[in-house]
């Protein structure tokens, strides 16, 4: 039972990790926390749904196309909505991102109302039985894809020139401007990348969950919890935080009370901020007078 | 005369970095005491330590005979030590009048309940504070800009408003962190005039951090020289001018 829980926890956690990572990418690049991120994730999942069901595309091309759409949306958001208000108070960004999320959510609800949608099955695979352990095709798929995506991400980040440039801009925007990096384009591509990665998360979770306009909220809070646990701003921390959160939800739900699954994320947030605000891998964040 | 401020062996250590080491001197009422030294010498740290923003790791500090080491900034300020900040400590969204009114906070004794219910004693106290703030601004010829948000004022005007605010409660000890930076030469002279007048006529003890050596030499009574956290000299301008160690500390800093 414990192993089973761990496995489902890791599968869920893998998605959280991906979402938290995508939020961190945007945060590191722009110091903005995209409070509407969950709704963009939902939009990515809905985009796949529309492409597959209404346009009849096969799953994989639809997924890739959806990710591309979200990337472009990210660039658009940065250029059209974030950049114009950059001289205002920081809280304006928070509100802008929330409101954009609202527009997406309202739009989805207007178009599709109160229905919930099952996503098309990705593939029909018999669950594998390893002793007492049941490994579903979906869990395997999710873990495998996320593992691949994360590996690709970190390879790009740490081993390529582009990755080094990104690291440099993360550390010092002014320095980057001095060496000729186009910071505005950087912000736009990071927003694009962040939303694209978030979309991947949404696309992955849809097969094991139902698609509905409010899907975003649960993503958002899990993403936050994972970022907080791993340490705000830490890329590796976001991944670790996501995995731990997924597993924690399963344990709390099974061993204490099923009602706790929904609220584990909040408990984690409060616990971390009270006990160790920097999270596992982050830096100290309090302001002392 | 009893010293206003007594520092004995004050040291400040930031996880390994010794920002201040064994600083000892006394400041007196009616005296203009300048603190100078190369960058990183620990001047602002000294002010931060005195005003309670930074804890001193060793040593003792007394203000008017009472210990102030370990106290919170607002407690030390309430006792009569007021300061300005290097980067300007004004409240940008508030008007000059409101800034000065905030400076008078500790002197306005309207009660919470009185304020909320609009009782007479509270309104009287507030009105008194308002009149006093207006008078202070008028005294400094700032009456015209009293109702402008300070972020819209010029650098010189902002400095003036900050001084008025800091002085509003007539504190016995004033710490001025680079009061003339960014001011034009005529404004600088005016500022130094005001400082000298505050010390000479009002009997306020003033300590100032300054880089403009001419002003320091002509405007202060005593100079304290810091270098790498240590006090390497203390004395009247004439002595300091000829002090070899001081010259050495400044060599390389034209």
């Amino acid at each position, binding site marked *: 039972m414990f192993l089973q829980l761990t496995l489902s926890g890791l599968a869920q956690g893998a998605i959280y990790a991906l979402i938290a990572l995508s939020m961190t990418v945007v945060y590191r690049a722009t110091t903005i926390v995209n409070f509407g991120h969950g709704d963009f994730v939902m939009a990515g999942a809905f985009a796949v749904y529309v492409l597959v069901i209404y346009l009849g595309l096969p799953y994989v091309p639809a997924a890739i196309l959806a990710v591309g759409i979200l990337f472009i949306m990210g660039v658009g958001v940065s250029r059209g909505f974030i950049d114009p208000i950059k001289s205002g108070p920081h809280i304006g960004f928070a509100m802008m991102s929330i409101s954009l999320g609202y527009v997406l959510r309202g739009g989805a609800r207007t178009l599709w109302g109160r229905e919930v949608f099952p996503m098309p099955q990705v593939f029909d695979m018999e669950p594998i039985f390893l002793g007492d352990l049941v490994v579903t095709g979906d869990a395997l798929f999710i873990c495998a894809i996320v593992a691949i995506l994360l590996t690709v991400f970190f390879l790009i980040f740490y081993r390529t020139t582009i990755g080094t440039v990104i690291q440099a801009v993360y550390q010092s925007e002014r320095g980057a401007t001095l060496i000729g990096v186009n910071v505005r384009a950087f912000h736009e591509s990071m927003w694009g990348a962040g939303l694209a990665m978030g979309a991947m998360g949404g696309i992955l979770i849809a097969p094991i969950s139902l698609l509905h306009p409010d899907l975003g909220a649960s993503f958002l809070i899990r993403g936050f919890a994972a970022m907080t646990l791993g340490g705000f701003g830490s890329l590796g921390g976001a991944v670790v935080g996501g995995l731990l959160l997924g597993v924690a939800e399963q344990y709390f739900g099974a061993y204490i009370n099923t009602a706790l699954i929904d609220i584990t994320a909040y408990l984690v947030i409060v616990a971390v901020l009270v006990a160790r605000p920097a999270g596992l891998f982050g830096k100290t964040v309090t302001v002392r007078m | 005369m009893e010293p206003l401020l007594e520092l004995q062996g004050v040291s400040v250590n930031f996880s390994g970095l010794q920002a201040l080491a064994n600083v000892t001197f006394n400041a007196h009422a009616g005296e203009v005491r300048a603190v100078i030294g190369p960058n990183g010498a620990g001047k602002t740290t000294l002010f931060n330590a005195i005003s309670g923003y930074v804890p001193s790791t060793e040593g003792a500090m007394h203000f008017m005979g009472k210990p102030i080491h370990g106290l919170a900034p607002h407690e030390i300020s309430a006792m009569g030590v007021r300061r300005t900040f290097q980067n300007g400590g004004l409240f940008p969204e*508030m008007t000059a009048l409101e800034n000065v009114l905030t400076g008078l906070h500790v002197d306005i004794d309207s009660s919470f309940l009185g304020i909320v219910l609009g009782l007479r004693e509270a309104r009287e106290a507030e009105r008194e504070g308002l009149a006093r703030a207006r008078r202070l601004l008028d005294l400094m010829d700032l009456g015209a800009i009293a109702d402008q948000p300070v972020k819209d004022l010029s650098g010189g005007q902002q400095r003036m408003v900050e001084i008025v605010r800091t002085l509003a409660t007539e504190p016995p000890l004033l710490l001025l962190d680079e009061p003339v930076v960014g001011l034009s030469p005529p404004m600088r002279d005016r500022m130094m005039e005001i400082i000298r007048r505050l010390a000479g006529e009002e009997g306020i003890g003033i300590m100032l951090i300054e880089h403009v050596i001419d002003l320091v030499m002509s405007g202060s009574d005593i100079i304290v020289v810091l270098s790498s956290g240590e006090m390497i000299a203390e004395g009247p301008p004439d002595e300091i001018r000829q002090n070899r160690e001081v010259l050495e500390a400044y060599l390389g800093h034209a």
Partner: protein
Amino acid sequence: MSRLQRIYYLIPVVALVIPFMANEYLLWVVNAMLVYILVTVGFNLVIGNLGQLAFANTAFFGIGAYTAAILMVYAGIPYVLAIVASAVAGGVAGFLASVTALRGIRLYYLAIITLAFGELMRWVYLHGDKVTRGSDGLQIPQPSFFWIPLDSEMPKFYVFLLLTVLVVKATSNLMRSRIGRAIVSIRDNEASTASLGIHTARYIVVAFVWSGSVVGIAGAMFAALIERVFPESFGLTEIIVHFGMVLVGGTGSIVGSVLGAITLTALPEYFRQFPGMDELLFGVIIVLVLLFLPKGLVSLLCRISPAFNERYYRE
């Protein structure tokens, strides 16, 4: 009394005739506006005047509503006392919320932890079945304000109007004093505030507790308004509504809070018939305000007369 102050006092007097000009439904919307005026005034104090990103407003709102409801249902407490209890409960919640700010937690961390507080409270309402009746909602017995039964929108209107005017005036008194200045100075430059002898922690607590009380009272009014209190009314969607009202009206401005509350109660209410449209409209309004009118609706008034600017003293 300045011309503007005369206008402010005139408005509630003129408003007295509203019930005779509006039907039951419209009056209900007006009553909702009054509730949300207090919600926004309370919220604006913390995020606009104190400048802290503390999103505990729905927690205060829900605690106010449930406190009033529970006391009326299980203890038969008269509505007037229930309102007082809600104010106290909201104040206590405000105090708890302030603890996080006092520990130095700021910005997004503060936002997240206070949001979590709100969601935890909602979980409590949802799972506190025996007492709160969970998702079925808690039906309150018909409230009476002293001897006046609140059995239709008209008596509710007069009671709500009275409460709103009193609370807004008290808040205005609070802000136009040394307390208000202390609070705003913390927002503008906390380090400097302490250098003026002001105990910043004390004023952070004052702002939070006042905010919690005001919104707690709004919660008690809300309970009387909708007559059945549900957990869903106090979730993440609700806090966005609150924030939207502050933003659209104008952060840090009491007049702005009133404008924002009125605007964003009326518009989505009209669109409630089309699911999703109200959210969509909300998002669009806020995006537009952020892009083109960042200081909120009150900034339009300020262009007409600088007297609408928020001032922190009384002449």
